[in-house]
């Protein structure tokens, strides 16, 4: 692909690129931040980035929300409903992971009095 094409693709698939950037930012946060809360925030950023990607991929130019009913003419273009359905599941899963991570953090803080991963390593 020529540079112009790549640039064109980058602008067209802008959402995707942003999502992937967020993915990397989240990963970087997890790896580099010693604080457990920040680590798990990084995790949430990663989760969000994937959701952003999936939901964006369901978009269709000029599409409406996929709800049929009165006032919706037969020829209407709907967006892709599958990514929405998937992401609903994804969000629930993310919520569950978050809940468990927070519970673990609460327990760790109660037991060790710190949330710094480097300090936690020393406690044994």
């Amino acid at each position: 692909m020529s540079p112009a094409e790549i640039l064109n693709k980058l602008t067209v698939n802008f959402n995707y690129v942003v999502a992937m950037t967020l993915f990397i930012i989240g990963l970087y946060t997890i790896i580099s931040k010693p604080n457990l809360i920040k680590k798990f925030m990084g995790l949430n950023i990663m989760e969000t980035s994937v959701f952003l990607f999936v939901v964006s991929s369901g978009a269709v130019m000029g599409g409406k929300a996929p709800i049929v009913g009165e006032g919706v003419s037969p020829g209407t273009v709907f967006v892709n409903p599958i990514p929405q359905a998937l992401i609903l599941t994804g969000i629930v899963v993310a919520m569950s992971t978050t809940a468990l991570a927070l519970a673990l953090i609460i327990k760790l803080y109660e037991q060790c009095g710190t949330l710094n991963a480097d300090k936690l390593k020393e406690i044994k």
Partner: protein
Amino acid sequence: MKKGVIIFALFLLWVLLVAAVIALPPMGSSETPAYTHVVPRYLEKEVEEGGANNIVTGIILNYRGYDTMGEVTVIFTALICVLAVLGRENIKRHTSKVELSSVEKSVIVKSVVRLLAPFIILFALYIILHGAESPGGGFQGGAILGASVIVFTLTFGFTLGMKKFPLKYRTILESAGPLSFFISGVVALFCGLNFLTYMLPCINHAYQDLVRHLLLLIIEIGIGIGGGTVIGSIFFAMEKVEKE
């Protein structure tokens, strides 16, 4: 040094991922494989086959109902996980940070919450029941329901919150999600159909549509109540503090 290596590695990964996504068909196009393969049938036939005007709801509860059953189980799992880590709250042993806080709760907050709480719950029920026709559904309504529990408890304290939402009912309601799915799904087995089929040809034709609606409703309510209770219970488990 170590940081540099990490950043460099992540940069490479970023390049790889971006290369992957820009190779995808342009966003928003209606010619993508994703939009032309399975989706057309959903868009055209869902209302007739799935019985919900909201196509997303139709997919969630009907075409991909098994996924949703798993999803409900994930919520339930999350609750059990949190309880396994932190333990269940006990009205005799625990109090909460809200009660230990030295800040006086203002009258405005108390009055507003007292006034709004019924409406929040009502709204949640609306969302739950109306999922088939408009945006919304069990999960969304459940989240609102859970939020009402949280708001109430944060304002009026733990003890009252636990009294309003007693443990012995919550224990049963927490499992409502998976159980409602099971109840609605297993009916089909007795008609010799596959699990989670709602359109039952073995009953009178006139009632088929009604039964389908009923089964879907059971699921929606189950998800909503179950989800709300789980959120509340997780909140209680996290908020509790040992009494002195």
